[in-house]
């Protein structure tokens, strides 16, 4: 046990976390040259394409240190995006140490700050590492100062590396063996193992990534999932090197996978404790706080015949994604679908993309919304995650919106832009102070304003330099109204949104203008109205298409005309028929495109 080192890598997107993990694997001989595929840890195609890590992963490596001893290094990879911070806290709870990777040119970013604080709270030894030291724009002194000022970690012995070229990586390995403590625990105590992650494998069933705190997990013996009390035989245990390598036993302090006969992912909940059936532990481990979805949207199949396939796909996806919430939703306009809850916008995009790509579904997604707290005149508190379900105006005594605290780090040059953006988003400044070349800002902002386009806007007004992290603060009363969209006089429930009263007039106008852009001309004239209750705030008209017919169809070659029809049909694939009007996907998302040019 004294030669085990469990550690996580904390880094902002693009700061080189996955590249560094690859370097470790190479140096320790985990894979040969031929097997080495860039960023082996990001195993989903989507992860590799987007260059982000979504799910926690682990890799176990044998490292022969200069002192002649061989150490078992367990690296727990962590996602770098704010939407997935819950995965980070899970990963950290399996470790004794963490490498804080900071880009030596860009400096500290808000996301890393938040994750680093979590690591410190969990009692982890944090090693600051400056990456991309070989870039001409690298400023190690300034960045070290930032680390000390913002995070409060001593950066005087920060390790300078270039994960890309490999420079400094051997020294880093030596340092981490020296500075990160070995795990503690009792091999002879009853088994206690923490489930860091569980996923569904088509061949193995449920596989769980665990950290053994006390005792050991041995093939053939029986274990118990403490929350459910269910017992299972242990079919296989092992580690990822990063190839899946089975072993006979996982001992105290080790990180590895466990396969039992569990068929359903809910049978092995993340954060739960595994113990032995024979001599169970008295108390479970503390576990993790339950994660709650924050952003909601309706997902509807374009072709209602694919509803069943859609339901099955959601069930399968949720097997590997405990954060994905879904329940049936019926819309007058869009028919049968599901109301889905996500951790954030990126999570939503990823789920939608996976559904379409891996399950070949064609979906319409309604505009994302946050959850509102509504106090009715009867004194009841209801939570509304769908604008269409907002109680009637005369039944509402108060609507409260979720407020978040946004922690932003931004270089001084862009502070004006960022403050202007926060004010536009109804933000209230809580804190502002200078650290190195950056400014640390805290704002309380209605979450509703943040989910729409805050992240993109923040990036664009700061040329990509600002970074941010957020956390939920409270529900707060606000003057909110439901803005309805009527198409040819018919209210389209899936297009309703909840907006602040002060901007409702403008939003209505902008929304109808955008919809006019997105809805193609059709056989009939189309009127688009924005209304609050029966009061119409704005109206746009889309003129009818003059005609839609192929002029000449001579000669025997019908295939070309057929291709044309097929092309038109494909164009309608992402459109939903509402009454006689075809509405494209973009129109449902029009709210994401308004308010930018002001």
């Amino acid at each position, binding site marked *: 046990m004294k030669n085990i080192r469990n550690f996580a890598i904390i880094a902002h997107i693009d700061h080189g976390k996955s590249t560094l993990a690859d370097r470790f694997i190479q140096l320790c001989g985990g894979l040969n040259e031929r097997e080495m595929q860039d960023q082996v840890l990001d195993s989903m195609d989507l992860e590799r394409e987007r260059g982000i890590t979504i799910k926690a992963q682990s890799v176990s490596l044998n490292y022969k240190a200069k002192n002649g001893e061989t150490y078992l290094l367990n690296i727990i990879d962590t996602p770098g995006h704010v939407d997935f911070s819950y995965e980070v806290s899970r990963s950290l709870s399996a470790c004794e140490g963490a490498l804080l990777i900071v880009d030596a040119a860009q400096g500290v970013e808000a996301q890393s700050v938040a994750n680093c604080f979590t690591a410190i709270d969990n009692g982890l030894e944090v090693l600051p590492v400056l990456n991309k030291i070989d870039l001409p724009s690298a400023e190690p002194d300034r960045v070290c100062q930032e680390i000390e000022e913002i995070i409060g970690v001593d950066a005087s012995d920060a390790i300078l590396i270039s994960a890309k070229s490999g420079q400094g990586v051997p020294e880093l390995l030596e340092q981490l063996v020296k500075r990160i403590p070995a795990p503690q625990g009792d091999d002879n105590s009853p088994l206690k193992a923490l489930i860091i992650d569980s996923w569904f494998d088509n061949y193995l069933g449920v596989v769980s990534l665990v950290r053994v705190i006390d005792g050991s997990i041995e093939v053939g013996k029986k274990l118990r999932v403490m929350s459910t009390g269910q017992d299972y035989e242990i079919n296989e245990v092992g580690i990822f090197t990063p190839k899946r390598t089975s072993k006979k036993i996982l001992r105290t302090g080790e990180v590895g996978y466990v396969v039992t006969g569990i068929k359903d992912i809910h049978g092995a909940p993340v954060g739960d404790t595994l113990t032995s059936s024979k001599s169970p532990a008295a108390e479970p481990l503390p576990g993790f706080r339950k994660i709650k979805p924050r952003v909601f949207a309706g997902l509807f199949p374009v*072709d209602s*015949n694919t509803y069943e396939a859609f339901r099955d796909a959601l069930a399968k996806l949720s097997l590997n994604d405990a954060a994905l919430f879904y329940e049936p939703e019926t819309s007058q306009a869009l028919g049968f679908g599901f109301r889905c809850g996500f951790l954030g916008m990126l999570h939503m995009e990823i789920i939608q993309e996976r559904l379409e790509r891996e399950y070949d579904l064609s979906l319409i997604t309604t505009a994302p919304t946050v959850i509102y707290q509504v106090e009715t005149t009867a004194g009841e508190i209801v939570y509304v995650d769908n604008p269409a379900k907002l109680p009637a105006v005369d039944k509402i005594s108060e609507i409260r919106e979720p407020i978040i605290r946004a922690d932003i780090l931004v270089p001084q040059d862009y502070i004006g832009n960022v403050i202007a953006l926060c004010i536009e988003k109804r933000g209230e400044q809580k804190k502002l102070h200078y650290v190195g070349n950056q400014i640390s800002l805290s704002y309380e902002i209605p979450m509703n304003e943040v989910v729409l386009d805050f992240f993109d806007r923040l990036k664009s007004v700061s040329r990509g330099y600002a970074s941010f992290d957020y956390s939920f603060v409270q529900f707060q009363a606000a003057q909110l109204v439901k803005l309805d969209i009527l198409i040819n006089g018919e209210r389209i429930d899936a297009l309703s949104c909840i907006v602040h009263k002060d901007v409702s007039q403008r939003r209505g106008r902008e929304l109808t203008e955008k919809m006019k852009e997105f809805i193609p001309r059709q*056989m009939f004239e189309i009127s688009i109205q924005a209304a609050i209750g029966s009061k119409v705030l704005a109206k746009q008209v889309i003129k009818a*298409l*003059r*005609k*839609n*017919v*192929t*002029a*000449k*169809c*001579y*000669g*025997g*070659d*019908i*295939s*070309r*005309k*057929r291709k*044309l*029809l*097929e092309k*038109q*049909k494909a164009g*309608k694939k992402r459109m939903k028929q509402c009454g*006689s009007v075809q509405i494209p996907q973009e129109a449902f998302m029009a709210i994401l495109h308004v308010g930018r040019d002001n």
Partner: protein
Amino acid sequence: MFDFKQNPPLSLYIHFPWCLQKCPYCDFNSHAIAAGEAPESAYIDALIRDLEFELPRIWGRRLISVFIGGGTPSLLSAQALDRLMSVLRSHLNIHSEIEITLEANPGAAEADRFAAYRQMGINRLSIGVQSFADEKLKRLGRIHDGDNAVKAIVMAQAAGFENINIDLMFGLPDQTLDEAISDLRIALEHKPGHISWYQLTIEPNTVFYKQPPVLPDDDDIWAMQQQGKVLLQESAFKQYEISAYALPKQHSVHNTNYWQFGDYLGIGAGAHGKLTDVANGMISRFVRHRIPDSYMQKAGAEQVITQQTRLNRADVSLEFMMNALRLTEGINTALFLQRTGLPISVIDAQLQDAEKRGLLEWDIEKLKPTAFGLRYLNDLLQIFMPSESKQPSEL
């Protein structure tokens, strides 16, 4: 698979794949060639071999029309064409009164041959005028001017052609409404029996597609179409298809056969054919080699066919509608069964949907697009698209 009571009417299409110049809007199988350079004798030989090879497939069936199209078939010398016509008469069941059309371009050289064409039995001339305005013709890459066009019509009439079609396009680059209507007036002054009044469409794989010209806006194009239609009607021309207008009894038999989902044998480079096999209950499409040299090399053998496709049920219904619904008067409902071998009930749901949306009218006697359906024909046809568009099965 399909239950046919009888053969549909049969037409013959013959393709000539050369032009003196390729027009920037044209996506037909035509290849530019200098005057007199086309290997016409070898090509006629190939057509004859190709026809002889196909004879067993159409054995005993009577032809209702022949169409020699292109390219520019009027580039063929009178002797070469005469040799082809003699072979057609000796090999096929051709009555003297059936419609035999030749596509002609209004170049001076071709017009001189019109009398000879008429004498060898060609009785309908389709003249690719497109416009009478010199500047527009230049933009379209045509090699003739307005005077040539007028002269061609006059000479065709002098040569004894009573059945003349004029192809006229509207919605040309920078064209005004007045210019479009003026073209139509000139055409009407020369009293043809048939006019194709059709909108310039930018097709993929053309020069115009790569370098799009500035076209009139939708509203102007619509006005051209509507005013043109009124003008044609005032001159006793009746619209019988999206773009086809004719004096009484002057409609094109050949094209009407396409629109009524009849059979046609297609010979020549890149020619398409569609034939019904009553005995085996199937409909097949055929495509021939499109490069003239390889066509000539392979003509006379099975290898000349590059693609043979057997239509499935969904294809057949859709393709029937793609043709039939172009006809302003539609069809007799019974024609569906006759031509597709399928009972009309297979498209019951689609017909009802289309009717509900005001795009189509039908009963047991007649089936026709409404004026609205004709205007949005592509939307109407979408209703008949197979829900999962599978490619027709290759044989």
